[in-house]
């Protein structure tokens, strides 16, 4: 608390000084967009690792076969101008002609075949390689500008991968230097080329004058400099003094503090991430949460709107079903739902034989302290005493994956890869060690939906799963966070439909 107060005091001083200092000065004159990131990314290409930060660079430097439109989410032609699903597991692509890589190498089917070959070779050790690329069984060159890709099983969300993580590397350059070259000296067809980097702190990108401008326009800003500034207060100071034009990792208290600051615009966008309260639901002696009425009581006892809007953001989504409404097949008309009704919660606890409550350990990643404490306060009203155990992400993850959690706050998903509800239901309700619901029917429905191409059938399967989850109150859906983008007011930027910004679309006003 002292830490928070001191930080708040320092922030107040910072804001006073920024107002005194006058409006920010953007880098319009030098045609350089200065961007702040909070974390270093391991790799600046999205194949070696899959994170929001690697996607940020990946979108600038490389192109994918399809492009996810940032306003609508629609899949548009990019390096592929056209594609046809021959059957549920085979897709043929017609490739764009006349595209060159940033090193002058021409783009053609050989590049696609080479890149997919690397994806299919599990010895390359790309992050989550088996999960993301393990279903690709064959890639064939049909002509200089056409390829066929075959999957082992139908994969309705394959397009999401094609539009996010699967960027196309140049075959000759990559073969000559090894695929790890793209971690330090990447070469793509994208709108910006990396010209220098100090790993972990500073990346300079320059507009690609030969960009083919398919689904997205040619870049209008000459240079983009991305700097890693871990402390958000420092980012605010840089924004206030004109050192930064674009920041996107600020939390809600930082954003509140920025309101009214001259020369600054704050834009909100949606995310695909969702948070839920996970419970050990196994029906065994000594586990009160094995009783569905206890879980329903917990669901009724949490005032989600107050917690979410008060602690996360007034813009954040309060969830009633266990998914983010931005995700495809996240159905929001599922019944029953659990409104905040404390009396009803107490009655359910009493009828379940737990009027005096019980004690339970809640584990959470330490960044979720405020939510954990709020839940502790809410559940105390029905005599459930939460013992909070907050820990670093790796330690929390270990315990959760190894199925050692009684109760936990779980956050999951980001970007295009989480655009489908299978991304979360298929992981937390699949009969694996991360499944705390133990419902074989839900596991069967989600497994079938992951390999069903018919949209109506998929919707029916997910409706079954989401309804059962709510009926049994296996989890308490909590919230979908928002993505906030802070820009200097010289910058023209529209928040994307989900948290997958494309900085090549940024321009100067006027």
């Amino acid at each position, binding site marked *: 608390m002292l*830490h928070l107060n*001191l*930080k708040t*005091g*320092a*922030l107040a*001083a*910072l804001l*006073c*000084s*920024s107002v*005194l*200092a006058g409006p920010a000065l953007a880098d319009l004159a030098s045609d350089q967009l200065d961007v702040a990131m909070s*974390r*270093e990314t*391991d*790799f600046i290409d999205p194949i070696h*690792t899959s994170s929001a930060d690697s996607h940020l660079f990946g979108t600038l430097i490389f192109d994918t076969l399809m492009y996810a439109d940032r306003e609508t989410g629609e899949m548009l032609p990019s390096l592929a101008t056209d594609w046809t699903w021959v059957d549920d597991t085979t897709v043929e692509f017609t490739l764009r002609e006349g595209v060159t890589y940033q090193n002058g190498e021409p783009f053609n089917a050989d590049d696609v075949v080479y890149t997919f070959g690397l994806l299919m070779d599990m010895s390359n050790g790309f*992050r*989550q390689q*088996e*999960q993301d690329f393990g279903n690709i069984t064959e890639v064939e060159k049909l002509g200089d500008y056409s390829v066929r890709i075959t999957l082992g099983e139908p994969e309705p969300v394959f397009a999401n991968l094609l539009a996010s993580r699967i960027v196309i590397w140049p075959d000759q350059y990559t073969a000559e230097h090894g695929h*790890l070259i793209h*971690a330090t000296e990447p070469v793509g067809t994208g709108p910006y080329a990396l010209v220098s980097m*100090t*790993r*972990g*702190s*500073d990346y300079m990108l320059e507009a690609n004058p030969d960009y083919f401008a398919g689904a997205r326009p040619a870049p209008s800003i000459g240079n983009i400099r991305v*700097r*890693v*500034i*871990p*402390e958000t*207060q*420092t980012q605010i*100071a*840089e924004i*206030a*003094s004109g*050192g930064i034009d674009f920041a996107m990792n600020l939390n809600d208290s930082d954003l509140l503090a920025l309101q009214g600051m001259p020369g600054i615009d704050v834009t909100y966008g949606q995310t695909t991430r969702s948070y839920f309260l996970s419970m050990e639901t196994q029906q065994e002696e000594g586990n009160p949460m094995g009783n569905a009425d206890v879980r329903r009581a917990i669901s009724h006892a949490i005032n989600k709107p107050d917690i979410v809007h008060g602690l996360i953001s007034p813009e954040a989504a309060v969830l009633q079903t266990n998914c983010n409404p931005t995700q495809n097949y996240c159905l929001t008309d599922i019944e029953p739902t659990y409104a905040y009704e404390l009396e009803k919660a107490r009655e359910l606890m009493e009828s379940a034989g737990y009027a005096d409550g019980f004690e339970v350990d809640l584990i959470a990643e330490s960044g979720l302290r405020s939510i954990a404490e709020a839940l502790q306060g809410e559940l105390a009203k029905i005599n459930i005493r939460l013992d909070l155990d907050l820990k*670093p*992400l*790796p*330690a929390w*993850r*270990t*315990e*959760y*994956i*190894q199925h050692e959690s009684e109760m936990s706050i779980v956050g*999951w998903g980001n970007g295009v890869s989480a655009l489908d509800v299978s991304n979360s239901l*298929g*992981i937390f309700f699949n009969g*694996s*060690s*991360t499944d705390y619901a133990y419902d074989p029917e839900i596991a069967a429905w989600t497994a079938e939906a992951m390999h069903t191409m018919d949209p109506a059938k998929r919707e029916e399967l997910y409706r079954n799963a989401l309804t059962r989850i709510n009926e049994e109150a296996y989890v308490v859906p909590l919230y979908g966070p928002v993505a906030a983008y802070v820009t200097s007011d010289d910058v023209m930027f529209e928040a994307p439909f989900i948290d997958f910004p494309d900085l090549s679309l940024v321009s100067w006003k006027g």
Partner: protein
Amino acid sequence: MLSFARDRILLSVCVLLTATFVGFLLLQASGDLAASLAGENASADDIAQLRQQLGLDQPLLLRYWHWLIGALQGDLGTSYFTREPVTGLFAERLGATLTLAIAALVISVVVSLPLGVFAALKPNSWVDGLLSLLALSGQAVPSFWLGLIFISFFGVTLRWLPISGSDTAMHFVLPSVVLAVSAIPALARLVRSGMIEVLSQDYIRTARSKGLPRHRVLMRHALRNALLPVISLTAVQLGALLGGSVIVEAVFAIDGIGQLTFRSIQRGDFPVVQAMLVFVALSYTVLTLVADLMNAWIDPRLRSRK
């Protein structure tokens, strides 16, 4: 002197080995790295396979032995995340951290010496009280708070100095001062107490009675002898500045080894964290060893006090 040096070096090696072993144990106990690396949607089989690939299924003592043999040959392992040798990751960032720590040390010595001497000349006066208060405040103020205040005043309002980054020497001014503020109080207090003690010695009275100028008595006879414990503390302070600059590096966005370690702790990149542990332990041990040897060289009586 040689036997004194030999004993100290052996002791330092023991300290270093103990520190690395305890650190290794603690890191292994902090979570299952394989589960963390595999990701949330990894199956138990995936995790087991990764554990085997990384050698994490081997007995703890064997893993430590392999690590130690590698470390003695200059191989501190490979980052689990960036797949680069840890020594390379450190080498890239060592310059920034060393620059920051040495600049902070120079500032703290330059400020604390005159402060301590001045306070010792007028002990228990209001000047001494004021200096003690300032020293106490310097030690009590959290560095992240002071850093943000400095940023807001010198960076945003006055725009005299850059706010973040490590592009130029000017970028190191604010963080060095912030880091120095935490080191000054201990040094100044030690100089003060050492000077008060030395100034009451007979040989100082003798020097004064010989009619030597005041500054000569102070500088040549008093300060020189009062500096012995200060040398030891300065060495330890440099170790602390090297290992303790994590917060200052984060506030001022300096990509030094403190930041690297912080990120590595967050994501469980054990080889990097273990290397940082070695670096800090080695810094402390070597600096303390050098200080001990210097003190023994200056004051031969110390050589007989093993």
